[in-house]
């Protein structure tokens, strides 16, 4: 590695996106993320799309460094284009995309030049639902529901309680909204501009952004120290 390359490594993230939450439901996968882009603790961008369709059968969600995510999208564009050019009627499914991303992320960590993201990969192909994750050092797995960042602390306990295989679309969206609301209340970098996306056998839909109804008048919000008396 040349000395010039040292300064090109990501040693810490600059602009970051917050949690992504995703679940399997009756007909496919549902994913949710807010649209904030934080520059440290500054809310720098307010309209960043972090849920993107990849090819025909895959939906990708990302948290972490936004520029690295956009680079990953360029990799995937090339991957899907090359796959299309075979013109053989075959197309990469979510499993293949997940595997590809796992290799890319692990390869970059091996070069000590990570892509600073946690990626959520969801999709449906040939009636098979698929939901997986990969992070910046290449750890990867599948599950019925996944969440990145603070979502792993705040959303997954809710999902473990309330998720089941046969959720309808409406129930799924309601469950995701519940998770996003908890994140909005407790994740300081979350913003109230949220996108939900769905992917089914029919295709991908990224719904237009919306806001959650919030209620800040809980007594614990107004006087959070009431039951935690201390010397300061």
């Amino acid at each position, binding site marked *: 590695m040349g000395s010039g390359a040292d300064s090109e490594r990501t040693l810490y993230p600059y602009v970051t996106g917050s949690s992504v939450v995703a679940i399997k439901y009756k007909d496919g996968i549902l994913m949710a993320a807010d649209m904030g882009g934080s520059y*440290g603790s500054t809310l720098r961008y307010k309209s960043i799309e972090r849920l993107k369709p990849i090819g025909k059968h895959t939906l990708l969600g990302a948290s972490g460094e936004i520029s690295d995510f956009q680079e990953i999208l360029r990799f995937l564009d090339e991957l899907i284009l090359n796959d299309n050019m075979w013109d053989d009627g075959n197309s990469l499914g979510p499993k293949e995309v997940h595997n590809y991303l796992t290799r890319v992320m692990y390869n970059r*960590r091996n070069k000590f030049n*990570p892509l600073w993201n946690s990626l959520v990969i969801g999709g449906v192909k040939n009636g098979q639902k698929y939901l997986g994750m990969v992070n910046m050092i290449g*750890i*990867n*797995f599948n599950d019925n529901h996944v969440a990145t960042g603070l979502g792993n602390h705040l959303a997954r306990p809710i999902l473990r309680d309330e998720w089941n295989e046969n959720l309808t679309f409406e129930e799924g969206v309601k469950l995701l909204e519940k998770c996003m609301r908890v994140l909005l209340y407790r994740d300081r970098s979350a913003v109230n501009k949220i996108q939900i996306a769905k992917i089914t056998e029919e295709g991908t839909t990224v719904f237009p952004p919306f806001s959650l109804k919030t209620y800040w008048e809980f007594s614990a919000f107004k006087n959070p120290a009431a039951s935690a008396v201390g010397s300061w």
Partner: protein
Amino acid sequence: MVKEQANWSPYDNNGGSCVAIAGADYCVIAADTRMSTGYNILTRDYSKICQLADKCVMASSGFQADVNALKKNLYAKHLIYQHQHNKQMSCPAMAQLLSNTLYYKRFFPYYSFNVLGGLDSEGKGCVFTYDAVGSYERVGYSSQGSGSTLIMPFLDNQLKSPSPLLLPAQDAVTPLSEVEAVELVKTVFASAAERDIFTGDKLEIVVLGASGIRREYMDLRKD
């Protein structure tokens, strides 16, 4: 901008425990299915056991991404072996291959802690135990991973294997029957899950015998 993140590390420890016990004509390989990072549980159903050859099974804990790369590497090498020799690799051969593969990355190691279990060419149970850089030894039973400090002394106490220093060398395989070995494995994991926060959720047990391979599951603590 203030640096919020600690210095980046290419490694993580995803926890988990692995155990293998060799008997006269069988081998039991077991691992829990929890995958953690720090105090987080990433998933409760991730298999740490993989079958590398007909009579050779590996259980690995440590850094999941490295384990994954290691597995892929071994699968590929084994595929080439099959094409060249038109047979499955024996367990002792796979054991040497695993050691070489780990040592090859001595200065940027695979952070993986493995036990390899199987049947040798005489059909006798065999267990090989490793460190992350490839030191290995054939033993009668072993444990690796986050709960190994709790499990290993328990196995030592229950199995009382002959010292490897004895001359002439004594056979290390355990005197237990297959059923007894499976029962023992269930007990040690239930015990480890009580104290080790990285071990739990579910236990996966693979039994290799003369008649083939069999899988069994048991629930563990989920907290």
